[in-house]
C-alpha cells in the first residue's frame, strides 16, 4: 500500500480511538476496567499531531475537510463501490493494477478510498 495512504488510514484509526475515548459510555466502561481513558486520549492526541505532521499538506487538508463534513474521510471499496457513498466506481478504477499504490478519492463523494486485500 502507498505509504501516504497507509498514513491516512492510520490517522483515521487514531481519530476513531480519540473519539471513542471521548464517548461518555466507553470512557465509563474503560474506567471500570481500571484503565485511564483521559490520559490515553491526551497521549493519542499527541501521536495524532505527530502523524499528521508527516502527511502531505494537500492530503491532510482534504482529510480534515472530509472528516468534518462526513465524519469518515477514508473508506474501503467493497464490491467495486465506495463504502462511503455506495457509488459504483468507474471500471478504470478497479481495472488498474497496483490499486493501493497511490492515493485515490471517490469520484462522487471525494472520500479517500482503498481496496481491501
Amino acid at each position, binding site marked *: *500500500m502507498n505509504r501516504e495512504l*497507509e498514513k491516512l*488510514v*492510520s490517522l*483515521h*484509526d*487514531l481519530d*476513531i*480511538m480519540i*473519539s*471513542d475515548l471521548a*464517548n461518555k*459510555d*466507553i470512557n465509563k*466502561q*474503560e474506567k*471500570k*476496567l*481500571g*484503565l*485511564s*481513558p483521559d*490520559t*490515553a*486520549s491526551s*497521549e*493519542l492526541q499527541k*501521536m495524532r499531531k505527530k502523524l499528521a505532521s508527516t502527511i502531505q499538506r494537500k492530503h491532510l487538508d482534504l482529510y480534515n475537510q472530509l472528516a468534518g463534513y462526513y465524519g*469518515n474521510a*477514508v*473508506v*474501503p471499496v*467493497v464490491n467495486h463501490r465506495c463504502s462511503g457513498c455506495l457509488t459504483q466506481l468507474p471500471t478504470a478504477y478497479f481495472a488498474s493494477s497496483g490499486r*493501493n499504490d497511490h492515493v485515490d478519492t471517490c469520484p462522487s463523494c471525494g472520500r479517500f478510498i482503498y481496496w*481491501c*486485500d
Partner: protein
Amino acid sequence: MDRQCFCIWNMSSKNREDAIAELLKEFSFQKTTENLLQNALETRELAEPTVVHEGIAMPHCRSILVDDFMIVVGKSTKGIPWPEKKISIIVLFISPVKPSGPVEHMELIKHLAKILSSGGAEKMLAAKSPSEGASILKFNYDGNSGDE
C-alpha cells in the same frame, strides 16, 4: 454474547509487540492490513498499557480495516512483559467501524468489564483450555483454532 473468538493457549512471544503480532496472525489478514492493525493496537498500548487486571491485558481498537468483530484470546504460561507487568492472559479485539457508531464496541467492553470484575479474571487466569477460557468470557469457540 454471540461472538466467535479464536484462542492460542501456549503463546511463544516474549514481548508485547510480538504477542500482538502472534495473536493477529490467527485472523489470516493480508500483510498490509495486519501491519496497519498491529500499528493501531501498538499505538493504543503506547498511549496507555491496557492492563485490566493483574496478569490480564486487553489490547483493543476500532478500525475501518475490519468488517466484523475480531476477537482472539491468548495465554502464556511463562508470562509476557506488558511492558512492566507480566501478563498471562491477553484478550485482543478489533471492532468494525459501523454507521451506527461505537455502540457495539462499547457493549463488548461492557460485557468484558462485567465478567472480569465479577470473578472472571481469576477464572481466566486459572483456565486450563481454550474452550474453558472462551466459555468464561461467554464467547463461541469452535475448537478449530489455537492449541489445546
